[in-house]
């Protein structure tokens, strides 16, 4: 009973196929028990009324949407890709343009809200790209070449008042202050 629920959680979170062997290793249960539970779970889920099914390939299991619902999944993905940008998205895009390469943490300090979903959205639309910054040990974001070309620019430096806006004093102060504050908070958290 419990095994079935655990398998369901793991298949859900992993997003890729998990073999009976791997499941048995994580759950510390023998393969026979895993397989029985997985088959039971599969029988339970793979009905017309369920939105999530389990697929089996070889000895691996994977979660997927009910094939009958595929059309709606496609609609959803399309809806993610189209549409004008919301005000928060535009704001984020602009900050990345003027201040890129910029980390998610810096972006959030400037905007004062969590930006995970917005960044994801900008990435999907090809307006922004991510890069690993080894020095900062963090992912940084930049506007894409495609987007600059769309604006009729060759480089971000050609954005109006780039010099002045890029090196704004308040911006500098805020980022300095917050990195100091965060370091302190991190310290107290460790205690």
């Amino acid at each position, binding site marked *: 009973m419990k095994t079935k629920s655990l398998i369901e959680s793991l298949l859900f979170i992993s997003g890729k196929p998990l073999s009976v062997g791997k499941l048995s290793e994580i759950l510390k249960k023998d393969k026979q028990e895993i397989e029985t539970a997985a088959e039971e779970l599969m029988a339970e889920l793979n009905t017309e009324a369920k939105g999530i099914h389990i697929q089996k390939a070889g000895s691996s299991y994977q979660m997927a949407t009910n094939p009958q619902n595929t059309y709606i999944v496609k609609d959803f993905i399309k809806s993610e890709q189209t549409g*004008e940008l919301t005000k928060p998205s535009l704001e984020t895009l602009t900050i990345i343009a*003027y201040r890129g390469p910029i980390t998610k943490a810096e972006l959030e300090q400037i*905007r004062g809200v969590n930006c995970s979903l917005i960044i994801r959205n900008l990435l*999907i*639309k090809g307006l922004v790209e991510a890069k690993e910054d080894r020095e900062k040990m963090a992912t940084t974001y930049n506007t894409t070449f*495609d987007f600059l070309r769309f604006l009729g620019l060759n480089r971000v430096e050609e954005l*109006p008042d780039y010099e002045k*806006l890029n090196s704004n004093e308040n911006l500098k102060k805020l980022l300095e202050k917050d990195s100091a504050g965060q370091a302190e908070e991190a310290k107290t958290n460790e205690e």
Partner: protein
Amino acid sequence: MSYKIKLEQFEGPLDLLLQLIEQEKLDITELSLAKVTFQYLEYLNNEKDIATEELADFLVIAAKLLLIKSRLLLPQLEIEDEEGIDLESQLKIYREFYEASKVLTKMIGKKKFLFPRERMVIRIEKIFNPPKTLTAEKMKEIFSQVLHGLEVWVNLPQEVLIKTISIKERIANIQSMISQQATLRFGELLRSTNSKTEIIVTFLALLELVKQRTITVVQESVFDEIVIKRLSGEEREVINENPL
């Protein structure tokens, strides 16, 4: 006796007040608030860890406490309650959420976190899709607005700092006023004040002077008139056993 207050680390003025009341094993009533008023003020005066930007909040509550205390001390003195929120119910409500936050802390401690899927199952193919009406000029506008909005956050602590400095200046003024007279009744002192802020500043100045052993304060019992006496040089040498 002199108050030696041993408290757990407190967060904010209501937290401090709640701890003082609980330490005295009192219920939350106007009377109890009046009883811990001086302890609160003394704590405020001695505590060096209160950040400047938080001090203003502590002083607001101090003002409310002093208002209660003054009203009980001098019923004939009609002090208007400017904000109409009584500290007693505010503190009662605060306590409820304070207790609830302890429960939440325990829940978080159990680490029964939930996990959503981080990524979409189906990889979305990136299709370049720019916002059609966006121009470079418009981006400049948006970014300028963002920068403008930062002003508040960058200058926040400074504003509070200015507020606090002005309070300190007023304390200094009142200090010099008191030191020019040998004996002063507290009621007289209060009558010369116009606002709640001035009342609290008066109290704080008194405390400061008591600490410096410039004056001594005599009060027969909790609700009696407070008499302020300037100490001579020799008297200052004597350790003041009963400052308040």
